[in-house]
């Protein structure tokens, strides 16, 4: 009896691990359904810089106060991602600037009324200006500017040796670095791309001398910087407005429009400074309502405890990494089997999965977002993670199968086993160690890469990392980075344990 039972053990393993996986990931489909049916709630997006976060929080608050359920997906990747999300209906509104709309979205030189008409063709509406102009500006350390006697952008012509650290977006924008350089005939050769928040550090410690900034940036005063005057009026006006879907509920649009003309530059700088000081965007939003409605309206309605936030981030992170890993396994193993046979098809498969790995994550997201079905959604994040997770699984499956000695392959053939039985009963179990180690690598990579999901508002532990990066707040970065690292370790241990169950005993002697 004992014999009969034990000899079936391998098949039993195969059968038994499936439900385990299903159990682990069963929460995912439920979640996917939830996210799509939560459409009744108004979704506000924001870009990944402080002011956009704060405006997003203000919009959420004004909607909530009007009795409309609202959700704020903060810190999404960039203009294109938000715009596509708005068009695709994944978000209902987000704060934008008129200059950006003209140059980046519509790619033309339109004035406000024409912009409004052009947007309508996309089913998108625009509020009147909120009241402040947040234009691009180049900034320098005050001491350095005074020492060199630089006051305007034209003055920069005289100092070709200055080092410029510009955000990646500014480097590429139609109203960004290249046309600016032409307009002012700027001679500087030493230009690097750097994250906006990190750039302030670089400016402070002298690694760079000039950086781009927003004119309402609280850091300008905090870091004792000067804005160089745009003496040739190069930068267009960047009036803050909200873009919204014309199909959004009328009461929601009405609520958003109550923000029109209520925020001047001074007020915005104050809110930005408050957000950066307290590391709490909701708090800064509250400040806006205090000024507007008086102290009576003061309240702390958005106080989510750290444990609650951490739980939310972690669960979402596991959903992202887990579901994408499951897809990578389901697709990767068959691809690996095909690839193990070599030939042109095998090379194409290994080549494709390899190339995917070399695409930077933000670029991959930007490629996926404009496609139908994807947009700004968790689907896009999962698809990107799935693609990144393929290579280790495909390659390890192929190698594991190719490493089976020829004599054993031939023994399986000579016995008369059908091709499927050979694969299932002999080849795959023999390659199991290699395949599992591929899956383990994928899982750990996915846990790390899942932080990118925050760039398109899909949440996870990347949320605190990105907002911390933006606030230059190491503690907030660590709130995401440490749990992500712990998660990666736990996943590693879990798979080490799984090895003992899934790798046949005869291969572990």
């Amino acid at each position, binding site marked *: 009896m004992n*014999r*009969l039972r*034990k*000899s079936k053990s*391998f098949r039993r393993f195969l059968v038994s691990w499936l439900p385990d996986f299903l159990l682990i990931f069963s929460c995912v489909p439920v979640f996917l359904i939830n996210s799509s049916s939560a459409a009744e709630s108004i979704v506000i997006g924001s870009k990944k810089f402080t002011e956009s976060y704060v405006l997003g929080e203000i919009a959420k608050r004004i909607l909530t106060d009007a009795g409309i359920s609202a959700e704020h997906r903060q810190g999404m990747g960039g203009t294109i991602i938000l715009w596509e999300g708005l068009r695709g209906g994944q978000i209902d509104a987000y704060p934008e600037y008129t200059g950006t709309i003209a140059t980046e979205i519509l790619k033309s030189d339109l004035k406000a009324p024409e912009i409004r008409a052009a947007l309508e063709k996309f089913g998108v509406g625009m509020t009147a200006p909120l009241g402040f102009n947040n234009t691009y500006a180049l900034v320098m350390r005050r001491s350095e500017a005074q020492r060199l006697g630089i006051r305007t952008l034209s003055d920069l012509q005289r100092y070709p040796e200055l080092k410029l650290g510009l955000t990646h977006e500014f480097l590429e924008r139609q109203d960004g670095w290249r046309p600016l350089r032409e307009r002012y005939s700027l001679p500087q050769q030493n230009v690097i791309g750097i994250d906006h928040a990190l750039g302030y550090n670089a400016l402070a410690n002298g690694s760079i001398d000039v950086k781009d900034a927003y004119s309402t940036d609280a850091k300008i005063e905090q870091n004792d910087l000067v804005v160089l005057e745009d003496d040739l009026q190069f930068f267009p006006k960047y009036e803050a407005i909200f873009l919204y879907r014309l199909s959004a509920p009328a009461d929601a649009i009405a609520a958003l429009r109550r923000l029109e003309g209520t925020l001047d530059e001074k007020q915005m700088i104050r809110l930005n400074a408050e957000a950066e000081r307290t590391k709490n965007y909701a708090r800064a939003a509250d400040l806006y309502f205090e000024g507007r409605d008086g102290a009576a309206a003061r309240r702390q309605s958005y106080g989510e405890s750290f444990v609650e936030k951490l739980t939310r981030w972690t669960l979402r992170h596991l959903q992202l990494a887990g579901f994408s890993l499951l897809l990578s396994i389901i697709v990767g193993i068959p691809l690996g089997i095909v690839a193990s046979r070599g030939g042109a098809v095998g090379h194409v498969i290994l080549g494709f999965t390899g190339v995917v790995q070399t695409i930077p994550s933000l670029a991959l997201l930007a490629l996926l977002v404009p496609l139908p079905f994807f947009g700004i959604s968790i689907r896009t994040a999962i698809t990107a993670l799935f693609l990144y997770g393929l290579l280790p699984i495909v390659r390890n499956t192929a190698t594991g199968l190719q490493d089976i000695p020829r*004599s*054993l392959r*031939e*023994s*399986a*053939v*000579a*016995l*008369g*086993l*059908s091709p499927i*039985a050979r694969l299932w*009963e*002999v080849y795959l*179990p*023999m390659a*199991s160690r290699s395949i599992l180690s591929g899956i383990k690598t994928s899982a750990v990579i996915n846990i790390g890469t899942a932080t990118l999901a925050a760039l398109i508002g899909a949440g996870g532990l990347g949320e605190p990392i990105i907002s911390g990066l933006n606030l230059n707040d190491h503690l907030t970065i660590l709130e995401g980075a440490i749990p992500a690292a712990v998660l990666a370790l736990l996943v590693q241990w879990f798979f080490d344990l799984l090895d003992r169950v899934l790798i*046949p*005993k*005869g*291969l572990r*002697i």
Partner: protein
Amino acid sequence: MSALVKLQDVSKRYGDAIALHPTSLSVESGKTTVLIGPSGCGKSTLLRLIIRLIEPDSGSIELDGKPVTPDNINVLRRRIGYVIQDGGLFPHLTARHNVLLMARHIGKPQEEMHNRLLELSELTRFSDNLLMRYPLELSGGQRQRVSLMRALMLSPELLLLDEPLGALDPLVRAALQRDLKEIFTRLGQTVLFVTHDLAEAIYFADEIVLMNDGRIVQNGTITDLRARPADPFVSEFINAQRGIASV
């Protein structure tokens, strides 16, 4: 006398290298035919062509009067047992599971499989207690006994052995030679046995087929080969092996 296996002008080449010139051979039912010759003479190739691990470039192979084709080979393989030098046991399966793998695959009843397994372990003198072990937990001789059980599980008409004792030390080898011979006799088994050891060939063979350089040089009993060598190579091969044996 009936031929169980018939090869007609079967040949195989790898690029420019000819592994087997067009060759014809009959393997008689109930007899042990031994293929012998130096390394690379084509004896293993011939065996692998019969079970179709490699496709012949020309010629035809018949098993029990029926032509072997890529379409029917997988069914025919159940009627052929195949044992190789290192046993070819699957390391992730126990000895028992290795033996039963194919029988299970074609859905033999539990009871029948169980009885056959007991029969085989008695026949091959393989202790029941070792059946639950994995190949890596068995000695070389034990592994070959399991491999033989696996080959015999479905009572094949033809047993192909490719240097089955080549990797064993002399004592184990001698014991297995005795047991194998007894098993063949008891089962009345048709066997095609590949070896490069003349003493082993003489011990097992009803008919010896001497090969060299991708061709059959001569076949017959050892007496025929000694008395009427078809070719100087035949005497050379026989004398070389005897020379070493007498030292």
